[in-house]
């Protein structure tokens, strides 16, 4: 009968280890002793361990003394905003990177398309592209990237 008791004790100990260190310093010994008494009374070790696990989760979620709930909420909000900002940045730079890597740098750069004058008889209104705007939009891009973007704009125009 020694092995099951040891197993029960280990189960409760594992649950107690889920508590923050400051809690364990304060209540750890007493909590282990209380668990032993409850097991001796016939309470299942699993339910005791479960109770401690739930208590540990609650303990981690409760702000420690000296830190108000609003401080914790503000920290969580700031972290969420930072994550969102980073995700937005990654999403914004991904297409630019993809354009830079899918085009082979060894390919010949096609000649620039000159805008057609409105008097050329085209039925469509033609708006010429402005390469300057492209360079402003991607300040970190190198010169070869710039050419690629110019090309892309030229095609779409």
């Amino acid at each position, binding site marked *: 009968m020694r092995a099951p008791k040891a197993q029960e004790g280990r189960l409760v100990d594992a649950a107690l280890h889920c508590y923050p260190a400051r*809690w364990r310093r304060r209540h750890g010994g*007493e909590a282990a*002793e209380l668990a032993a008494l*409850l097991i001796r009374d016939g309470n299942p070790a699993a339910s*005791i361990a479960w*109770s*401690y696990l*739930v*208590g540990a989760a*609650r303990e981690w979620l409760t702000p420690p003394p000296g830190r108000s709930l609003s401080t914790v909420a503000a920290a969580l909000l700031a972290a969420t905003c930072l994550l969102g900002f980073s995700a937005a940045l990654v999403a914004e730079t991904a297409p630019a990177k993809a354009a830079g890597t899918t085009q082979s740098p060894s390919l010949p750069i096609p000649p620039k398309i000159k805008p057609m004058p409105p008097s050329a008889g085209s039925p469509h209104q033609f708006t010429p592209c402005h390469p300057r705007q492209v360079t402003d939009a991607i300040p970190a891009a190198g010169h070869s990237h710039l050419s690629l973007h110019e090309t892309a704009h030229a095609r779409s125009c």
Partner: protein
Amino acid sequence: MTTREQDVLRRVGEASVLILVSLADGPKHGYALIQDVKQFAGVELGPGTLYGALDRLERLGLIESLPASERRHPYRITAPGAAALRVHLDSLERVSAAGRLRLRLGGV
């Protein structure tokens, strides 16, 4: 301040109220608290719930821990704790009386 606002135990949960009621007749440690609550309320407090409630009540200044004997910390109700329990029990009594009266009047 209304009576409802004075009742600080309104939001602390049932376990905390049961612990305060148990401590009202003298200091007890964890195991004795669980046994006592089981006896007078028929509620089996889990040890995790017990320590959570004890910490909350201590933070609110409604109970205090006494020097440990061996590894056990006895807890004692404080004067603000006793006052808060009185207010809460009065509030429960009013609700209970109103409920009983209405049940009688309604013939349910």
